């Protein structure tokens, strides 16, 4: 399997080189045969890399421990689910995953555009092939070949890091990568538009769906990563401003800014320079995210170790920025549009502010993540973690929430005073009341959270009233009942109403985060068997302490664990549940892990960590974290993702689809 995989990687690299060369020649000369040949090269690379991916999966599932990667990240004891996930547990597999996904994206783009965007496609193919070349090069020549064989074949592999044996961690890297790789598509079309000088909004329409999917997957990956941290790492949090977390957040923020600003170009023909800059930045920052994770340059709880792919990725980023920067400068005269802005109190005005905040937030995260490296260059060793980011992100997040309420309801061009009053007076009163109420309840403390509560209420009321008015209008004009009218709102203008769902999800999420940040508390208790104690309104007792061992196929010790089953009752003695928490040691990995127990509810999660236990006496030392509003944090994430899915699936206007189909048909007739 090693030979087949390595050969497939070589063929993938060769096909990418061919596609790049032929594509570039075809783009410059207009030679149709070269252009088609480049597209063939991309399809060939996709086929070769699919074979390589299949070969690695086969090697993992068949326990081919002659391959070092398989021996390092899998074992005979792993379930099929985790064997499949071992694919991306290490550096080399992750690079293969990146390259394989990119090749699939590129192949779909080529097939999808056989008769569309033919003027852009030569440069699109060339750009996609160039990126593919970089990643296949890393595997073939830079020492990250996942099929490299060891000097000897061990009887069993080391196994998967126990921290990674969690369902969300299985999907988290894949979704993050689909997002990262997805930003290659807008980048490729952007380069094509710049290279050809066709700078109208056609390239934007071509990539809008791809960008939404990339944004959606990246966001989903971030959420899954947060969920993994929460249930698996055992520190009671879901976001720690870790450099690797930040690496995925930066392109997501830029992608969000891009998705908003393209609307201004589509509607008003403005912000062309800004949009190409954002498209390039989103991709460059995706590469930067990969660089941070892969190079070992940052100290992170979940970065890969040091490796030699860093310099090549750095070079790739420099080339992306360099070539794109030169093209943008070259096309500046064509990118300038006659911009007209009548008032800041207009849709386009509020979008400008929202872009400013998104980009500023992205810059903040980028700067904070990169600063330790810069400081080290001037002989200072510093750490930049949560206190730094929270200092800035809180106020900026609050401002973004407020804008979320304003943006969609302001009229294009200029909103009148009446428009402002009609749309915003009731939400503003609602927001002010909630802020006041929260301040009173908190005794004047946590004013930041109270403010975010008020802003969130403001947004909630504006969105609700928008739905209410839409439904009322449909009922009056079309005589539909409320349910049908609600459904029709989505089907007739999915982009707008699914956008509202995303906004709703974001405010629920951010409000939940603010509540959690302010009202989180913790406690400790040591309990003997049969003893119970009150912890923050919960009556806690240890129901059972036991030891468990599991063995490998050959009878060796795989894992030994001390398990505590903790009985939780409310203050009135009503049983709320038995919570399972454990400390385990994985012999193969020489690593201890903690499995936390979580008792969720609408208000708060009771998070229980076993610190130590003695099975002989039935005593245990437990740590408790009261995590308020976690349910709403996850609901906010689900709503945001659901809105994203609706936008991605149904976000194109019927008119656009019809026009594009007609173009495709006309082109095929030529």
């Amino acid at each position, binding site marked *: 399997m090693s030979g087949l995989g390595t050969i497939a990687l070589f063929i993938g690299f060769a096909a990418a080189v061919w596609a790049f060369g032929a594509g570039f020649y075809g783009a410059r000369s207009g030679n149709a045969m070269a252009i088609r040949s480049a597209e063939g090269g991309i399809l060939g690379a996709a086929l070769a890399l699919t074979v390589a991916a299949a070969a690695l999966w086969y090697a993992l599932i068949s326990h081919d421990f002659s391959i070092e990667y398989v021996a390092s990240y899998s074992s005979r004891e792993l379930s099929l689910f985790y064997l499949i996930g071992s694919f991306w547990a290490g550096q080399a597999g992750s690079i293969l995953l990146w390259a394989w996904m990119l090749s699939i994206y590129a192949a779909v783009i080529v097939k999808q555009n056989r008769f569309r965007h033919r003027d852009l496609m030569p440069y699109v193919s060339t750009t996609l092939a160039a990126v593919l070349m970089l990643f296949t090069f890393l595997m073939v020549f*830079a020492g990250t070949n996942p099929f490299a064989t060891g000097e000897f074949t061990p009887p069993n592999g080391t196994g998967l890091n126990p921290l990674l044996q969690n369902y969300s961690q299985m999907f988290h890297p894949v979704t993050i990568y689909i997002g990262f790789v997805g930003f290659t598509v807008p980048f490729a079309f952007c380069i094509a538009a710049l290279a050809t000088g066709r700078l109208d909004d056609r390239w934007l329409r071509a990539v809008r769906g791809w960008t939404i999917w990339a944004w959606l997957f990246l966001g989903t990956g971030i959420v899954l990563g947060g969920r993994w941290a929460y249930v698996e790492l055992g520190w009671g949090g879901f976001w720690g401003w870790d450099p690797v977390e930040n690496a995925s957040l930066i392109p997501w923020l830029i992608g969000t800014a891009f998705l908003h600003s393209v609307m201004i170009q589509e509607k008003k023909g403005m912000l062309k320079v800004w949009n190409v800059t954002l498209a390039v930045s989103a991709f460059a920052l995706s590469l930067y995210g990969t660089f941070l994770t892969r190079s070992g340059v940052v100290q992170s709880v979940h970065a890969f170790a040091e490796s030699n792919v860093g310099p090549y990725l750095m070079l790739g980023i420099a080339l992306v920025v360099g070539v794109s920067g030169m093209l943008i400068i070259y096309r500046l005269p064509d990118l300038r549009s006659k911009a007209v802005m009548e008032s800041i109190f207009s849709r386009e005005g509020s979008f*400008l502010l929202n872009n400013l905040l998104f980009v500023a937030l992205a810059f903040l995260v980028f700067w904070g993540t990169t600063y330790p490296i810069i400081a080290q260059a001037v002989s200072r060793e510093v750490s930049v973690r949560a206190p730094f980011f929270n200092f800035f992100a809180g106020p900026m997040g609050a401002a973004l929430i407020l804008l979320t309420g304003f943006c969609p309801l302001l009229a294009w061009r200029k*909103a009148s005073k009446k428009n402002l009053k009609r749309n915003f007076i009731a939400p503003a009163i609602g927001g002010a009341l909630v802020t006041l109420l929260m301040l009173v309840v908190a005794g004047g403390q946590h004013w930041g959270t109270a403010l975010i509560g008020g802003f969130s209420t403001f947004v909630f009321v504006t969105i609700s009233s928008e739905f209410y008015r839409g439904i009322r209008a449909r009922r009056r004009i079309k005589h539909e009942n409320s349910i049908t009218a609600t459904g029709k709102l989505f089907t007739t203008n999915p982009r707008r109403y699914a956008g509202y769902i995303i906004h709703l999800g974001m405010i629920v999420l951010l409000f939940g985060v603010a509540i959690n940040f302010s009202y989180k508390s913790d406690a400790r208790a040591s309990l003997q068997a049969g003893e119970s104690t009150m912890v923050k309104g919960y009556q806690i007792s240890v129901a059972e302490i036991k030891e468990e061992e599991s063995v490998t196929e050959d009878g060796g010790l795989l894992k030994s664990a001390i398990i505590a089953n903790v009985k939780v009752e409310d203050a009135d003695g009503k049983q709320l549940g038995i919570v399972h928490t454990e400390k385990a040691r994985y012999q193969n990995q020489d690593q201890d892990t903690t499995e936390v127990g979580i008792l969720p509810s609408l208000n708060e999660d009771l998070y229980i960590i076993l610190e130590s236990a003695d099975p002989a006496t039935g005593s245990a030392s437990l740590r408790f974290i009261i995590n308020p509003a976690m349910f709403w944090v996850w609901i906010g994430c689900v709503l945001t993702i659901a809105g994203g899915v609706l936008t991605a699936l149904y976000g194109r206007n019927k008119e656009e689809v019809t026009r594009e189909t007609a173009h495709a048909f006309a082109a095929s007739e030529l």
Partner: protein
Amino acid sequence: MRPLTLSQLPNSRKHIAQFAFALMALVWSIGGSFQVAHAHVGEGHENHGNDPVSWMRFADEHAAAQASTGSASSPSMPFLCHDGDLALETQDVAVGAALGGPLAAGPGLAAALFQQPGASPSVVMDEDIPGLVEIGEFPDVPQKDLREVTDNIICQCGCGLTVSACELAMPCSVSPRMKYQAALYLEEGLSPQETLTKFAEDWGEKVLAAPTKEGFNLTAWWLPIIGLGLGAGAVAWALVTWKGQAAPAEEVTAGETDPDMLSRIEDDVQEGM
């Protein structure tokens, strides 16, 4: 033929040339730094990453070498602690040499990037860390103050988490001892802020979860604010400029028949027909 100078180029091309020069200088200096980074790599080091199979083999070889030479040094385990030098492989040298050229001198960004110890999920053996105290009877100090300190110092086990988080998440013996040290300082009568300063004196400022607000670190705090200010300035400038280009606009009137809202809903209704 006379060589073309920058001033003779048309405007957009001149900008491209300037941009290209700046970028080349950046890449050149980064490349040069790779070379410097590699110069620090000690002989006999191999890059084992966090590949346990490769690591085990290396550890065995190292043990055999120790046995034959009587050396007392021990190799560092990727999951326990890091070796100080990060070995870069030969390809890095090639890139560094190709890009670095004669400008490669002095510590640069990439030296900082690639010279620092690796960053795998790790726990350092606490005996390797000087200054850690043994945990004794835990002093009775205000939990709020203690939390303020442990939320703002980084555990030195290599995990990169704050002491509060590491204590819960990692099987680590460093964070409880750092927490105990913090409690001792608080018991001595230091305030949380003074305790943080004491930690920074003992361990260096890398122990703090945020940069201090002095010296070069001021750039860390001020740049985001300056960036935001410049951005806001650019938006204001754009608004003023673009407003000047606008024809006198009639206000979109609202009220019961807000045309914007009405037209949006009516469009939807028409589309759905």
